[in-house]
């Protein structure tokens, strides 16, 4: 079954989702089934990465139709890496989901919640597996539609409006992507990414191709919440159930960044990109995101919203890495993709644990909880340090590579912005820690206890991963460098334009 792995990763959660939806309500069977499925997916994704690193590209023809006519799943180091991030985060989130979902989601909706979760996983994994541009759109819609449903399950009624807001923005994004794909198809007659890469260099003068490219870029930028198209993100992450926030924050935007990398580096030729202001836009948007989103984050009183704005800022770092247009820059972007998934998942899990105990995550209500919940507090401190980029944590590695890439380009302003962003992160993480630890315990929080073990174990697995990948970078940096190599990133450099 070796070469079927790429397919099974998508089909197993797809078949499991409708089955989970009709499992009896009330029991824990839906959770258990989903748990097993996500573990299988994580196992398959890691063996897939191992296979790709050892034996090279995997190509799978769906229905036995040869590419470029049929749909092809094409796995190289880039997809395999992103697929592993998605599957691993899903597998770590699921043990955490049991108690948190029981607390935050009405009981009769729990089977549907897990069903939507599996569909979202199907969509995200599907995007990473496929080598067909239209198929990307199909999976994008599967993952988006299920994430709208997941977000609307939040306890607060504002969850409905924020899910609706995301629905409108997400649909515009997906439609733009589809229009772009249609325009490109009208000129090339193919949807296969490899085939497009072969055909587009001859056609790069055409206005239609330029228009298609612009539509695709805007569409994906909406999906990945690239500043200033991020407006749907803070509310969606704030009002979604904690589990959903953990999963989406760590995976959904990452997968969108993956599509962006594919379109930029695999599909479109380098001289085409140089004729457009793409890289400049990435750098400007990245710098604006780092500064403005971090400042917004400082002024938030809801911790989830604070972290959501911080996510927008972190996506800015990744955009900046892409904008450097060098293999070092893309390597840094890919490393940060992985590390940010680790630290944001850990932070949102810790906030979920606080919500589990006191039912709120407002700055006003958490005073002094650090002493009541020492393990949760410790996790926030370590993951927060990682977000800031303190040496010894995963965040440091991303910042280090990003700054190196910036120095290589002599992009001094970017260097200053990256470091300034870290300073702003010190302020907003400091705000959380101050409230949790340095303020006296309020009466209502006196009785709060440490979060249950089932929430703490996945949380600390992620926290330890944050430290581990800050010390041993052979996996992250090794794979990211290989992936940047596979993408065929040519060192153009912003200065040499």
């Amino acid at each position, binding site marked *: 079954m070796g070469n079927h792995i790429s397919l099974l990763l998508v*089909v197993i959660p797809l*078949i499991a989702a409708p*089955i989970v*939806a009709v499992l009896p309500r009330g029991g824990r069977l839906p959770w258990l089934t989903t748990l097993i499925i996500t573990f299988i997916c994580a196992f398959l994704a890691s063996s897939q990465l191992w296979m790709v690193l050892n034996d090279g590209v995997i190509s799978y023809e*769906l*229905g*036995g139709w040869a590419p470029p006519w049929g749909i092809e799943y094409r796995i190289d180091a880039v997809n395999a890496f992103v697929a592993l991030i998605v599957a691993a985060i899903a597998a770590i989130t699921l043990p955490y989901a049991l108690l948190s979902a029981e607390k935050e989601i009405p009981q009769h909706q729990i089977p549907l919640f897990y069903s939507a979760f599996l569909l979202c996983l199907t969509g995200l994994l599907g995007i990473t597996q496929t080598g067909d541009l239209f198929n990307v759109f199909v999976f994008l819609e599967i993952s988006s539609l299920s994430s709208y449903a997941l977000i609307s399950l939040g306890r607060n009624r504002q969850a409905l409006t924020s899910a609706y807001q995301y629905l409108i923005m997400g649909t515009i994004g997906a439609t733009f992507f589809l229009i772009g794909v249609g325009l490109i198809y009208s000129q090339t007659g193919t949807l296969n990414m490899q085939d497009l890469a072969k055909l587009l260099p001859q056609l790069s003068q055409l206005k239609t191709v330029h228009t298609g490219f612009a539509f695709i870029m805007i569409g994906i930028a909406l999906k990945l919440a690239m500043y200033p198209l991020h407006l749907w993100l803070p509310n969606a992450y704030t009002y979604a159930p904690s589990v959903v926030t953990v999963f989406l924050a760590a995976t959904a935007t990452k997968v969108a960044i993956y599509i962006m990398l594919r379109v930029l580096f695999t599909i479109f030729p380098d001289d085409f990109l140089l004729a457009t202001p793409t890289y400049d836009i990435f750098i400007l948007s990245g710098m604006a995101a780092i500064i403005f989103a971090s400042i917004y984050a400082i002024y938030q009183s809801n911790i989830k919203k604070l972290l959501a704005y911080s996510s927008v800022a972190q996506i800015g770092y990744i955009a900046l890495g892409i904008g450097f247009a060098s293999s070092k820059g893309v390597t840094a972007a890919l490393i940060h993709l992985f590390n940010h998934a680790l630290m944001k998942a850990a932070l949102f899990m810790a906030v979920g644990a606080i919500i589990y105990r006191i039912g709120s995550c407002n700055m006003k209500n958490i005073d002094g909880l650090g002493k009541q919940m020492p393990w949760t507090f410790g996790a926030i401190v370590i993951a927060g340090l990682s977000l800031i980029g303190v040496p010894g944590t995963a965040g440091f590695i991303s910042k280090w590579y990003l700054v190196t890439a910036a120095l290589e380009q002599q992009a001094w302003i970017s260097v200053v912005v990256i470091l300034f962003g870290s300073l702003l992160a010190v302020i907003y993480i400091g705000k959380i820690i101050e409230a949790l630890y340095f303020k006296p315990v309020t009466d209502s929080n006196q009785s709060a206890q440490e979060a249950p073990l089932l929430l703490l174990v996945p949380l600390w697995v992620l926290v330890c991963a944050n430290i581990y990948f800050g010390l041993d970078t052979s996996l992250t940096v090794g794979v990211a460098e290989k992936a940047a190599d596979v993408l065929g990133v040519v060192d153009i450099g912003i200065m040499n334009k």
Partner: protein
Amino acid sequence: MKRNPILRIVAKFLIPLIILFALYVQFHGDFGPGGGFQAGVIFSAALILYALVFGLDAAEKIIPPHILRLLASAGVVLYASVGVIPLFLGANYLDYSVLGSTQIKGQHLGILLVELGVGMTVTAVMLIIFFAFAGRGRP
């Protein structure tokens, strides 16, 4: 509505024809225009007409909501798992050619089953949406 004999009799006359047409569209989908999606919509239109004329309670007696949920899920499972069978026969996913004795027979059977899954899910989901909206405000 119960006092409208013309409406009731015409509906009773039309519903079997609509269902028959839905089945025609469903099973003729692999030779001509049509298929599972269209058939599912037509099939559910017949039941929605019934619900409009005879009331929601009568319609829910014919197809209870939990059956609809099962039907909706079963359709998706059927759709996805027909593609898996070729894996066990040594071919790639969705390669229906190996399902029958010849390639044409295999592809035909595969498409027929897939369309059946689509038809089941579309019928059920259309009805679920209708019941959800029509049932608002009911005790």
